């Protein structure tokens, strides 16, 4: 576990209060909600957008950010994060996790419920909410669908929804019982919140990587792609039957993408996300035997990556979300079979998107930004139109072309398990602003 970098305590918030008057000058505003890109200045007073216009004059006492050559976007949103608090604070805590988020340009996130204890009741939900206050990053804690995420008894969803639950998820576990899944979807309809589904059929032998020619050559135990797609097929059927709202998490296989494509043609209420590692890397990486490439769902083949690129372009995949899963090095630095699943994501979500999608022209910058700003907020019923006078300034300023080398030791997360260590990435976040607070990279 990292506690410090350059004498900075990673468990202390790294933001500052935003100046009373802040003027962002000479930048290009890219508004993925309005789908517009234009040169403009933005004046922020007391953390609220006062004016978006060209050539705003800096008044006396106004702090100025010169954003020449930079883009100004709505703050990024990551709807799939493990903050590890409570229970696994050696890996991450709410402050270090949100430090990592804002350093990656993320101003809002959805935290999953697989903590200890599990977030399956109002009291734990409220406790986490109270500990996530006063931060730059807005933390939305997602409660479990079922008690202890065991897939059997529904959590008290009405009360949880009343206390701010935007969605429910047993993430980490697939809900094995079709009956439970049907019940959860029917119940959640009452408050219009989606169920975020971790699609996995656990009846397949426990494996450590994708079933492919690579697993054959490496002699590794495997998880077939159909362990994911079978569950997706089932839940599409259930969603159609009960007219429920399903969001599929970390979709990784081409089979899954095709099922979702068909379901969307039918106009079912189905959305899905992909992680940066699943659109960037293939299971060939496992040939290094590095546990940095052990995640669930596992890295798949080039064919799957190609299908994901196409589905991102076609709008079949709505959201890019990280599944940020910190683990302390003593847990990861063991034999491949014994290491836990999961990799970091918050600080490389944006740069991985620029490097692997925007630069190679798989997506335009606008299309990419939509998937990390507008779409996740829409799915969780949050306001997606942020760049407006009168709104809290929730803004990320970035340089699309800036090159940097990912160095696990320099990341703000307490953990080191990035799958992009030593890679050259393009796209660097320079400022993140939200809730009257500012982070400068």
């Amino acid at each position, binding site marked *: 576990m990292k506690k410090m970098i350059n004498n900075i305590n990673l468990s202390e918030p790294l933001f500052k209060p935003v100046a009373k008057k802040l003027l962002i000058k000479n930048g290009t505003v890219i508004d993925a909600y309005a789908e517009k890109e234009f040169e403009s200045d933005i004046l922020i007073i007391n953390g609220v957008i006062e004016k978006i216009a060209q050539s705003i004059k800096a008044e006396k006492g106004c702090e100025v950010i010169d954003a020449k050559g930079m883009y100004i976007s709505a703050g990024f949103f990551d709807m799939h994060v493990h903050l590890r608090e409570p229970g696994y604070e050696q890996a991450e805590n709410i402050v270090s996790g949100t430090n990592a988020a804002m350093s990656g340009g993320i101003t809002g996130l959805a935290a999953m419920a697989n903590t200890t204890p599990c977030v399956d009741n109002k009291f734990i939900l409220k406790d986490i909410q109270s500990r996530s206050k006063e931060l730059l990053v807005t933390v939305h804690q997602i409660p479990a669908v079922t008690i202890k995420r065991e897939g059997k008894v529904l959590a008290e969803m009405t009360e949880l929804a009343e206390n701010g639950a935007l969605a429910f998820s047993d993430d980490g576990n697939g809900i094995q019982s079709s009956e439970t899944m049907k019940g959860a979807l029917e119940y959640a309809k009452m408050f219009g919140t989606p169920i975020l589904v971790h699609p996995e059929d656990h009846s397949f032998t426990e494996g450590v990587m994708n079933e492919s020619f690579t*697993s054959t050559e490496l002699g590794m135990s495997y998880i077939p792609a159909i362990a994911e797609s079978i569950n997706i097929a089932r839940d599409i059927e259930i969603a159609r039957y009960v007219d429920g709202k399903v969001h599929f998490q970390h979709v990784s296989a081409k089979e899954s993408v095709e099922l979702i494509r068909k379901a969307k043609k039918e106009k079912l209420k189905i959305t899905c996300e992909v992680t940066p590692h699943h659109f960037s890397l293939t299971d060939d990486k496992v040939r290094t035997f590095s546990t940095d490439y052990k995640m669930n769902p596992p890295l798949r083949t080039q064919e799957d990556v190609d299908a994901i690129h196409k589905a991102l372009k076609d709008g079949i995949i709505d959201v890019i979300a990280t599944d940020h899963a910190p683990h302390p090095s003593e847990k990861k630095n*063991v034999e491949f079979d014994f290491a836990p699943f999961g990799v970091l994501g918050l600080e490389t979500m944006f740069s991985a998107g620029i490097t692997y999608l925007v630069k190679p022209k798989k997506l335009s910058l606008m299309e990419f930004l939509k998937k990390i700003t507008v779409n996740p907020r829409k799915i969780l019923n949050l306001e997606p139109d942020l760049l407006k006078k009168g709104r809290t300034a929730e803004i990320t300023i970035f340089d699309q072309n800036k090159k940097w080398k990912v160095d696990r030791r320099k990341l703000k997360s307490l953990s080191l398990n990035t799958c992009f260590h030593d890679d050259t990435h393009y796209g660097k976040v320079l400022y993140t602003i939200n809730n009257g607070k500012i982070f400068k990279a």
Partner: protein
Amino acid sequence: MDDRLGDKQLLKIKHLLGIKGMCKEDLDLILKTSVSFKQILDTPNKKVAALKGITVVNMFFENSTRTKISFEMAEKRLSADVLNFAASSSSLKKGETLIDTAKNIEAMKIDMVVMRHSTPGAHKMLMDNLDSIIINAGDGAHEHPTQAILDLMTIVEHIPDLKGKRVTLVGDIVHSRVAMSNIHALKIFGAKVQVCGPSTLMPRDIEKMGVEVIYDLNEAIENSDVMNILRIQLERHVGASFPSLREYHNYWGITNEKLARAKNDILILHPGPMNRGVEIDDDVADGDHQVILDQVLNGVASRMAVLYLLSANIGGAK
């Protein structure tokens, strides 16, 4: 230096982690050296001083009788100091990490590590963290390179040129490190490789390794020059992918009756330990075509060769 050995040549590899990626020259040199050691093993003085002063530790995190004894014998015949460490890999999971265990042992000044482990790639971790020479004695279903070398040595004693000859691996391919290493080695020597067994014991896309997949054992027996019969792990299979040992024996067990359709000089190998009455019948296991005990002796000779040739890198493995 024992003058029975001649000049020591150098391998291109520094460690033996797997057959994949090895060049033919290295395998030729190991085979040639193995033959010299086999000749020495046939003389009254079976011991050479080649590894005198060198310490080898055998770390076995999985049960093994044959491979462990074979390595230990090879090390002793070479006059190495031998240390044995056995534990289940699950106990590693609970307590000290593999790296810590290995570094502790290395701190006592050892030179070479022979390891068996249940996880593919565990040897790579060891290589990255230690200065010692690493030899893989089996890692999960990944590789078992010395088994492939001793199998190759045994086959070549009867068939000097493997080009175009058909070698069939029979049985549990999906869980077999022996199969993987054998496929790599046999391909390097130009053999046609075939895998035979029930479809549920064939790993995905195995054809991409350049082997033919065949389910019918009788057909395989007819077209093969060599058959390597893999062990069925009795505790592992019965369930969703394996009906019963009875059915396995009936359709994929090698019997004299089935062998009647084979070429006259077919060679039968088995890496051991055998399940008589399951994958191989008594009359085949003790019959005229088998070279199973030759494999055992060749195992010692070829492991001597590997240890001896790799010892040239001691102190400069990285």
